[in-house]
């Protein structure tokens, strides 16, 4: 009889220990999940900011490239214009006298 009582007592104690182990694990898991939920907002914001920041950088690059392209175009146009201006100057020098004579003929009776 005594032995049986001792056995029941031991089983009951272990049951209590088992319950405590499970309760501790449950509490720990709840804490884990709660911490993860709190961290989740930060993770969301960080992921949002990082991705958006990459896009912003890309946008800056896009604009910079477009500005550079436009600058190159300007240089090209100006270079062509300067070449044309040189051609104009050469023709003007060559035809200078003819133009002066023509105007004199037009204005003089």
């Amino acid at each position, binding site marked *: 009889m005594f032995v049986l009582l001792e056995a029941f007592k031991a089983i009951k104690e272990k049951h209590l220990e*088992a319950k405590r182990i499970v309760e501790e694990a449950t509490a720990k898991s709840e804490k884990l999940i709660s911490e993860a939920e709190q961290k989740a907002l930060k993770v*969301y914001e960080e992921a949002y900011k990082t991705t958006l920041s990459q896009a912003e950088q890309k946008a800056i690059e896009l604009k910079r490239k477009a500005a550079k392209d436009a600058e190159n175009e300007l240089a090209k146009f100006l270079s062509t214009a300067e070449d044309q201006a040189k051609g104009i100057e050469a023709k003007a020098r060559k035809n200078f006298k003819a133009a002066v004579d023509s105007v004199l003929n037009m204005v003089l009776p």
Partner: protein
Amino acid sequence: MESTREITEMIVEEAKKSADHILQEAEKSAADTLKKQKLRGVQRAKEASKILLRKAENEAEFNKKNSIANSKIKAKWVILSKKETWIDNILKEVKNELKILKQSKKYLSILEKLIIEAGVTLGGKELVVLLNPQDSALPLKLGNLAKEIGEKTGFKTELNMSKEKVEVIGGALVKTADGKVIMDNTFDDILRRREKELRSEIAKILF
């Protein structure tokens, strides 16, 4: 006693297994939550990025087109300003040539023709001639000129030299005796009123 120990060990062992499982599940759930939130953040940012990039592309394209249009204008301006400078040089040279012409013998007959032309335009009759101080000293035969104007207009014409002088390169300013109608046939005014036509002609010849 042996079987009691086995039972109690089993109870604790089972509890530990359950605890491990609970913790594993919690860790999995926590990791899952973080992963989902990260993905959500990335997804939302990608949507915002699309709008941002589209706007940036549009802005960049607009600015590029605008700059290129301005560049074309600048380039055209370089050419036009070069042409304008040369046209101005020609007109300056024409004025110099006219000043030189004034020193030549040919000038007197040119001045006479200018006076006749102005007189005819005014329709003859009583006219007054205004010249610059140097030209006033030239031996102009106003009587002969008046006669020619008269022949061309059909009206008896009288030409008188005004005491008033004009500050011009050369040529003549003729007005009716009452001063109501003026025909400015000075070189200065001819160049001024025909400037558009002259510039166009110069451009044709020069370039």
